[in-house]
């Protein structure tokens, strides 16, 4: 093994420490701000609890006790919209991914084969959502879908499906076909082989797709802002709305922000390898 020069190591650790600080400090600041009394926030930065300010849990109590109904409603809306669209995206995405990986399609109009179809599908993911602002507003109000969970689930599914197809197609391409082949020799239909043999083997790919769909829907802002106005408002829109009420109340915003961020950051910390593999399937194979 080669030995690193000392300045090489110094540089390495400096970068790692500086960047970790840049990443972690805002999280620390959110946490401490959510525990500060309004005065401790207003009187310039206070850094360490018990040393230069007295922590209080009153803002957390306010959010989850006094105002608990409202907070939990938005939290629930986010959970429903995100998990609903995740279920559909995983289902539709894995089916199409399997199809594109195992069969040869030949469309007459437009005259496309598998690769063209796959490219068309992924290209939908990159269309600017602003294009859909007007049609979705008009169609949704005509169909009565504004401010409903179903409306959000439908819109998010449309955005999640392309990426789901892309990841699952890549996953199935790398999955050996022996087991499903022998199942079919034993008389199973394609569909049975897909449901009983292929899907159980695809857990890592499905988990990747589920994480991406969930996190995207959980974090989405434009559609939620446009298509909800009271009942179905999700956490991001609720947080953004804190802007105008009574000036900027940093202590509530910090607590709310941590509430909105905690589930997805936890998912990220626990399932890091699925995210990496999904991203790589999405980006490298492109």
């Amino acid at each position, binding site marked *: 093994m080669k030995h690193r020069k000392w300045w090489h190591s110094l540089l*390495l650790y400096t*970068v*790692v420490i500086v*960047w970790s600080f840049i990443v*972690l400090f*805002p*999280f620390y600041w959110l946490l401490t701000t959510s525990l500060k009394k309004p005065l401790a*926030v207003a009187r310039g930065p206070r850094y360490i609890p018990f040393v230069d300010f007295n922590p209080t849990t009153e803002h957390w109590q306010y959010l989850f006790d006094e105002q608990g109904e409202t907070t939990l409603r938005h939290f629930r809306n986010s959970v429903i919209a995100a998990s609903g669209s995740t279920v559909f995206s995983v289902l539709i*995405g894995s*089916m*199409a991914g*399997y*199809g594109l990986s*195992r*069969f040869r399609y030949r469309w007459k109009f437009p005259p496309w084969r598998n690769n063209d*179809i796959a490219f068309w*599908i992924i290209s*939908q993911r*990159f*269309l*600017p*959502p*602003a*294009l*859909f*602002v*007007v*049609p*979705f*507003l*008009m*169609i949704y109000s005509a169909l009565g879908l504004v401010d409903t969970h179903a409306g959000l689930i439908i*819109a998010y599914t*449309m955005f999640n*499906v392309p990426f789901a197809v892309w990841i699952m197609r890549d996953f199935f391409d790398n999955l050996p076909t022996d087991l499903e082949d022998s199942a079919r020799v034993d008389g199973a*239909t*394609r*569909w049975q082989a897909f449901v009983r043999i292929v899907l159980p083997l695809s857990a890592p790919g499905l988990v990747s797709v589920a994480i991406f769909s969930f*996190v995207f829907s959980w*974090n989405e*802002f*434009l559609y939620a802002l446009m298509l909800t106005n009271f009942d179905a408002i999700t956490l*991001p*829109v609720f*947080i*953004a709305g804190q*802007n105008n009420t009574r000036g900027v109340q940093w202590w509530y915003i*910090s607590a709310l*922000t941590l509430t*909105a961020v905690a589930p*997805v*950051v936890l*998912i*990220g910390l626990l399932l*890091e390898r699925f995210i*990496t593999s999904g*991203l790589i399937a999405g*980006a*490298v194979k*492109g």
Partner: protein
Amino acid sequence: MKQVFLTPAVAVLLLLSIFPLFWSLGISFTDVQRGSAAATTTTDDGTVVEDSGFLGLGFHATLRNYARMPEDERLLTAARNTLFYVLAGVTIQYIIGFGLALVLHQPFRGRNIIRVIFLMPMMMTPVAVAYTGRMMFDTSIAPLAQLLRTISHTLGLERPLFIPWLTDGSVAPWTIVLIDSWQWIPFMTLILLAGMQAIPEDIYEAARVDGASSWQILRKITFPILLPISATVILIRGLEIFKIIDVIVVTTGGGPGSATESLTMYIFKTALTFGNYGYAAAISYILLILVIIFATIFLAAMRYLTPRTSG
């Protein structure tokens, strides 16, 4: 049978993407307003007359939405801002992301936990990132502001260092890019790191045997091999930044004036605040054209950079 697998995805996209796309294109050639049931025409003497409109559909077909664009200062500003966010954003994120990937590629103790920590911002809700950024760049209560005050005090400056992060039209776009970068540099790092780990070790060994320095290895081996994947991540990030709205809504609301407004935000305001559906749809097509130009350039670059394989 094989159609069963593909049809749901294609149906979803046709129904929810292609159909609205054409709908939107149609709307962009009309004067449809929110809630308007009947078409109106303003006659020469200024009175407003109700009529049946285009084919009796309650609106008029018009080219005015496109014709008025060159005179719309606010639109031009929004387009310029959006291009700025994309170019400044991908540049900063790519350079820092590449640097961090190089660091994470080195073996050192605690590398796995550091990798996970570096990933955290990417998972956050952009709205939350924006509020956090606003808090970090606040000019009175933020640690950064205090740091600047302390520095000016120590140096005995007559005019204390003061950066109007979000309130000055020439600084605020940079601050927004910084906030977006904090969130998305990990994405660049993660994928470039995966690319680096896929480079076979014997290429490096051979270079070292030939006496190449680390800098030469980076410049002549690592960087060129990563070019195609670099083009891909820049393309993906660029396309994502074209959509930017959440960070701006929360930090500056598009201000001061419309100095930080992006196209997506202007479209949103035109449709929801002003209720002018026709114009909003027309602008969204301008955004689409910008996106297509950007993507075409990058796809061409990728094709040029990717080593040709047989078949």
